[in-house]
């Protein structure tokens, strides 16, 4: 596909969008994992009886 003389601008636009969206998704997944890990930690604490002592 020939994008003409402004191919650089077109490809840069799509690349930047992919980069920002990728960062947004990765950050969301990383954040979710951190919260899930912390919640599992509390559940393990409760399971071991520490939380009731």
């Amino acid at each position, binding site marked *: *596909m*020939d*994008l*003409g*003389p*402004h*191919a650089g*601008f*077109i490809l*840069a*636009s*799509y690349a*930047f*969008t992919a980069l*920002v*969206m990728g*960062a*947004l*998704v990765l*950050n*969301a997944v990383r*954040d*979710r994992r951190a*919260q*899930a890990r*912390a*919640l599992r930690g*509390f559940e393990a*604490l409760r399971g071991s009886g520490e*939380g009731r*002592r």
Partner: protein
Amino acid sequence: MSSAPISLWTRLSNPSHFMRWSGTLAPWLAGLSGLVLALGLYLAWFVAPPDYQQGETVRIMFIHVPAAWLGVFFYGAMSLSAVGTLVWRHPLADVAQRAAAPIGAAFTLICLVTGSLWGKPMWGTYWVWDARLTSMLLLFLIYCGIVALWRTMEDPNRAARAVAILTLVGAVNLPIIKFSVNWWSTLHQPASILRMGGPTIDPSMLYPLLVMILAATLGGTTLHLYAMRTEVMRRRVRTLTIREAERLDAGRVAVTAPPDALPQAL
């Protein structure tokens, strides 16, 4: 409004119910977003013809316009949530607001950068201090301010009220963004989709654009739902951390001070 929709709304917006229904809905929504995005990209790259004036550069519009729409859409959603926080103090309202801010900021940034990359070959410049461009830049700065404010306050309830007020003040910018191209003489073209008399874009480009707008809206909503669920989890972690710290504190007092010395120890 009858009581049935109100009770349904109350039930759906209860945090526990929200975690249940959103957990089921999110994967389906993500799959649907992916499919619509694939279709949109196919139409934008292989079906839509080059524009008679812009040439192939028109393909930037298939990401620029959806990004602009979502930048404004998420701010509108945040303003509604801000009313929910200030008037009803609904726990999910500030969760929704906090989760939306980084997503709205990201789409606004994409809109600004792709617009700039389109502007250079078409207008001969990356940037002009035109009313539409400036009001979009202001929207991005407001988003950044909101994200920063959330991060500076430890207590989410205090932060929610401050952010809600800032959000509502910033909402003044939304009609300015929309009507700037009519109120002032701008380099940015006037509305070409949402206008009296219908869209001015040729159907061969309009339909791919509408599919891309739908894909971006579905994708943005999926991300928002996902981020809201994470935010609910973060608040649970915070509550459990405080409870655990209080328990440890109470245990330390019990160990270090005999019961009759407690008043002096405290």
